[in-house]
């Protein structure tokens, strides 16, 4: 088949050479940030599992714990979205199911991340349950 379109015409709209690495880079940048954060989070989970509700509230009201928890949550959900997106793109080839799953991935990460961050802030800023217990 002979195409009458110019090479430039065929290439247009298929993505910009200057932005193609964005997703790849964001996966790496979040991965690097998560290395120390995850080690800290494992330590946090260990301490929290040994304590009760009062201890958890007290723990999360510490500004450093609250900040690191929110950072870990936001960066984790960003990384989770990027990772599962690649999985969907690799295995799901039907346009409709692929689009639905990619949107679902985005919305689940967005909703769960927002809920988690808001909940942490609510407790950390002193409005949660027993307050300063």
């Amino acid at each position: 088949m002979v195409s009458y379109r110019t090479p430039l015409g065929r290439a247009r709209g298929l993505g910009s050479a200057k932005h193609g690495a964005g997703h790849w880079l964001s996966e790496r940048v979040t991965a690097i940030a998560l290395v120390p954060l995850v080690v800290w989070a494992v330590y946090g989970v260990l301490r929290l599992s040994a304590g009760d509700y009062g201890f958890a509230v007290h723990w999360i009201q510490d500004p450093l714990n609250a900040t690191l928890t929110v950072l870990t949550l936001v960066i984790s959900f960003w990384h989770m979205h990027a990772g599962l997106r690649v999985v969907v793109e690799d295995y799901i080839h039907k346009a409709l199911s692929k689009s639905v799953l990619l949107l679902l991935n985005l919305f689940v990460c967005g909703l769960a991340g927002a809920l988690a961050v808001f909940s942490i802030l609510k407790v950390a800023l002193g409005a949660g349950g027993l307050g300063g217990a």
Partner: protein
Amino acid sequence: MPRRTAEHGAAPWRHTEGIGSAFVDTPPAALKSEAASGQGKSGSDQMTDASRTPRTPPLSPHLQVWRWHITMAASILHRATGVALYVGGLIVAAWAVALAAGPERYAEFKSLLGSLPGKVVMFGLTVSIFYHLANGVRHLVWDTGHGLDVKSANASAVLVFAFAGAATLAIWVIAGMTGAL
């Protein structure tokens, strides 16, 4: 012509030795048999053969074709633990929501995770987080262009498996000692 390898049934390169040969584009075995079967035919015969029988296009070699090796297992596990940690992330979000919901809901959440199925899930997530963490660092090192040769890739895979096992064991021993279980 590029479709000829599909004719030779399953994978003629199944028995390739060593990991290095797994990365060869056209397997030597397939090349050999192609040359052998092509001897008796003229070029035009092959053309008519090809046009008469519609063949399914060749698939790129997939999971069941390769002999299992450690770098392959490491790669697949990275993805599997990543998906497991996706669920883990949702559990962490549920923890935050339970904490904000007050003492009763938080106690419910804790007893759910403290139950036997909850502990099994937490153990799986511990293995997953340490595996994905170590193998993620392995990937980051690769991104700098280091450790990509077969010997290093095999060695770092062993290291990642060892780290995941040791770290999981250590954390659960500490959890047992600090009363977290």
